[in-house]
């Protein structure tokens, strides 16, 4: 019943897409299309929520796709949860685009693909057989690719789209191999029979690795993340929000579906791989982000970090499950999924903010921004909430989910295996490092963009963004706060999912009561308590000031140790803000080198500093592949230009060889 309704919603989305493509050239459809997408996504969101609450499941087999297989769709707790994530992002993005989309100069390149993209993500979550799954998966990639290359006049975007589509194809083929193993020689492609059949551990391990690679390449785990910071910023900002905040989560869904649902029990050693990959991804992702000064690319890189955190949680869940520690597994899984939800909230929020800045100033480069807190106060405060949330600061939601992840890490002494015992705390340290660096990263992002003095006329003349965009951002910011104050509400909603994945669930408390990781643990975290305390403290302090302090305030020039300089150029830039961290971590991570040119005495030329970073992943992995392909292509090319006699020689030789083989073989 609900399933049919959701499928109808996706059908409606596709219809909207077709409509936009068909009549787009006659009328400007921006408002209708986005309004329709928002409405439909809202409906689907509602259905997802009530499925999650009622815990009802449904399956459906449409007579399309492969005749003997059909298109199977199924909605269960897991699917419902991701349905919520997808459609929440869909609603927000559509509402935001109601305002933002008006700045689009080629709406016809965006409008048809946006609803189709939404539909694709919905269908991936619902698909219940390998064929429909990959079909929708690749459809999702294709539509998002079209959105990435929507501003096709910039060659950079085309390059981004190129790399993106290649990586997407790679991921799909890898997943295809995984499903090939799961389906077995008889080609039992529907998930039901995949669950029922038991493949031997070695094959299961292979499937898990393939799933990690295939889904991870779309989620952006290091070292398969290279496309992500290129493609996400290239798209229009509301699409960037969807790709970064939602599509990566669909990839996480793919991994969860295969690793927890389809392969069955997996060896604990593999979970170590997942955990390690997650930890490394988290730290490298945030380091990349810190080195960026393009706002949207910074956000995209930062997605990599959060994906790392999520994968650490999932890996821990796998490990606990493999060792039969159900409660701990439930905690880890809930933490990961809760972080999935949270990240989809604040990452979309932040991309919306960057979009608002982009449409107000036409700038993505932070070095040309600054002082926007005065010009765009509302956007600033909303962006600040998002930044604080993503930096895992209490009492916001980012902290809640990271707190849960840490609690899961603290349960690692229960592991019987040495490897896991040592790996988990180390990963915990990596997560802490990532969290601290994330805070640094967003101090930089917010501070350089919104604080200080304007670094360009565009920034100085920026105007507050439109109402629709603000509405969308306010919605997400509000949710960030609510999820931070009442995490119990959401962990309770995630209980059925955890039940489905790990056959256990976190202890559920009343939403306003503190969060308790496991039934046996004495630990607790009550976001709302903290907020009340903070408000109380703030009120008391304010009162004290009112009573005892001199309230007079005078405005004057900045003191700056007595040497104030009017030029905005003397402010700290994004580069220089990251310089200490670059000095500390960059030398290892990026072989960072600073060449300083200091003019000699009496020389009036300007001093220069040139910073060089090397992306080891690109240089070490992808550049060689590209080089190899080109080499081989060059080496083969002459075969196009042989003489007819030589071609005949080929035919003749193959004939003789085959006959000889036969003669010897007979």
């Amino acid at each position, binding site marked *: 019943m609900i399933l049919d309704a959701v499928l109808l919603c996706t059908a409606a989305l596709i219809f909207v897409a077709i409509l936009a493509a068909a009549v787009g050239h006659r009328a400007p459809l921006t408002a209708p299309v986005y309004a329709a997408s928002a409405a439909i996504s809202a409906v689907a969101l509602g259905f997802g929520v009530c499925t999650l609450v009622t815990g009802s499941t449904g399956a459906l087999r449409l007579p399309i796709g492969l005749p003997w297989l059909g298109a199977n769709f199924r909605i269960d707790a897991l699917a419902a949860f991701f349905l919520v994530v997808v459609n929440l992002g869909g609603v927000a993005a559509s509402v935001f685009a109601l305002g933002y989309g008006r700045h689009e100069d080629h709406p016809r390149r965006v409008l048809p693909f946006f609803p189709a993209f939404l539909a694709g993500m919905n269908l991936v979550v619902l698909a219940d057989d390998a064929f429909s799954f990959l079909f929708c998966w690749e459809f999702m990639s294709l539509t998002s690719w079209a959105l990435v290359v929507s501003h096709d006049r910039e060659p950079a975007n085309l390059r981004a789209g190129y790399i993106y589509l290649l990586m997407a194809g790679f991921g799909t083929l890898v997943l295809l191999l995984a499903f090939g193993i799961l389906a077995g020689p008889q080609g039992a492609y529907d998930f039901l029979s995949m669950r029922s059949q038991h493949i031997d551990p070695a094959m299961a391990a292979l499937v898990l690795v393939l799933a990690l690679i295939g889904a991870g390449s779309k989620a952006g785990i290091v070292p398969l993340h290279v496309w992500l910071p290129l493609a996400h910023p290239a798209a229009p900002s509301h699409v960037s929000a969807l790709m970064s905040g939602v599509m990566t989560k669909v990839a996480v869904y793919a991994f969860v579906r295969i690793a927890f649902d389809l392969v069955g029990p997996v060896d604990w050693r593999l979970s170590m791989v997942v955990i390690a990959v997650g930890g490394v991804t988290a730290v490298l992702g945030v380091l990349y982000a810190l080195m960026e000064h393009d706002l949207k690319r910074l956000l995209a890189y930062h997605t990599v970090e959060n994906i790392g955190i999520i994968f650490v949680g999932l890996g821990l869940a796998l490990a606990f499950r493999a060792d039969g520690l159900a409660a701990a597994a439930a905690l880890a899984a809930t933490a990961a999924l809760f972080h999935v939800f949270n990240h989809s909230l604040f990452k979309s929020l932040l991309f919306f903010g960057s979009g608002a800045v982009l449409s107000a100033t036409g700038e993505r480069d932070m070095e040309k921004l600054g002082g926007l807190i005065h010009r765009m106060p509302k956007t600033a405060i909303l962006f600040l909430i998002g930044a604080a949330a993503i930096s895992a600061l209490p009492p916001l939601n980012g902290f809640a989910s990271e707190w849960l992840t840490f609690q899961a890490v603290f349960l690692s002494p229960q592991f019987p295996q040495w490897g896991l015992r*040592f790996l988990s*705390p180390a990963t915990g340290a990596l997560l802490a490092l990532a969290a601290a660096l994330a805070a640094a990263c967003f*101090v930089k992002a917010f501070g350089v963009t919104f604080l200080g003095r304007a670094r360009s006329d565009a920034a100085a003349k920026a105007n507050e963004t439109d109402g629709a965009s603000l509405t969308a951002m306010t919605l997400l910011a509000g949710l960030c706060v609510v999820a931070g104050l009442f995490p119990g509400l959401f962990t309770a909603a995630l209980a059925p999912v955890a039940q489905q994945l790990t056959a256990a669930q976190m202890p559920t408390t009343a939403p306003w009561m503190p969060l308790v990781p496991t039934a046996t643990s004495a630990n607790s975290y009550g976001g709302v308590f903290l907020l009340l305390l903070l408000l109380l403290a703030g009120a008391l*302090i304010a009162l004290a000031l009112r009573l005892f302090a001199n309230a007079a305030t005078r405005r004057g020039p*900045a003191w700056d140790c007595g040497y104030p300089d009017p030029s905005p150029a003397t402010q700290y830039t994004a580069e220089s803000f990251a310089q200490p*961290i670059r000095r500390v971590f960059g030398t290892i991570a990026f072989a960072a080198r600073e060449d300083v040119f200091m003019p000699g005495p009496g020389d009036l030329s300007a001093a220069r500093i040139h910073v060089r970073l090397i992306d080891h992943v690109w240089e070490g992995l992808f550049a060689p592949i590209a080089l190899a392909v080109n080499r081989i292509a060059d080496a083969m090319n002459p075969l196009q230009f042989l003489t007819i006699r030589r071609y005949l020689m080929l035919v003749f030789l193959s004939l003789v060889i085959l006959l000889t083989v036969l003669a010897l073989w007979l």
Partner: protein
Amino acid sequence: MAVSEAILAQVMQAALLPALAPLLTGIVRKIKARLQLRRGPSIFQPYRELARLLRKESVLANNASWLFETAPLAVLAFTWVAACLVPVFGPELALGSAGDLIALTGLLASARFVLTLAGLDVGTSFGGIGSSREVMIAAVAEPAMLMLIFALALIAGSTHLSAIAAFVESPALGLRISLGLGFVGLIMVAIAENGRIPVDNPATHLELTMVHEAMVLEYSGRHLALIELASSLNLLLYVSLIAVVFLPFSANLAIDGAPPFAVVFALYLAKVFGLAVLLAFFEVSIAKMRVFRVPQFLGAALMLTLLAVLLRLVSRSL
């Protein structure tokens, strides 16, 4: 302990810590002065300074935003709430369930987040220096702190300060090498987080060396007062954290059941004083290090705490 007493303890602590914080600063300064063969100001000098600042009018830069104005209040609030989570007077606290050590670290991180933003707000070069160096130091300090928490959690089986305090007071605790390592690590982190020598010098305004002071350079009047109070409260917080976790002697003088409150309080003051002396000795006997050697300093702390964790794991699994 009954709930009522827990609430009482909580309120007392909430009121006492901010009141005592400037005193600790004063004491440390005094001892340092004496060790440097100066007479030094009275130990109540910090109170006078706060009063003076509160009396003065506050000067804001022309382009300072609302964030710059509200930051001091937020910083103090975050620090204060964090301080309330440390059970200085016996393990039971009414607000204990609101947050654990991780929450405490998070609250302090929030305070730092706001302060570093404030440093960037006016758009002066000094604020930038301060903020960027501060986040760099924090980036190394926080993992160390978390590893420490992890070690404690492994020993006490909980990340909860009340539980940890209760456990370390209980006779069940034998001598633990991990605890020793954690102790050193926590001290190093505390030094870094409070901007003490050798990481930072709270008493200097020399451009190249200052970190914390550079961030708050633009503040004056009541705003500066709040920030000063917050930083001294931060110092007291760490000191009492060390006192609670690593100097658990209150249990021994339990006459019948729970020790009388006065005794506990006196004992607490004694611990704090002792640690203040220790800190003063340390600060006068060591020179400030270059900013880019700080990561190595804190890296050592991280290594110590990580080692503590691993040893803990070993000893548990043996």
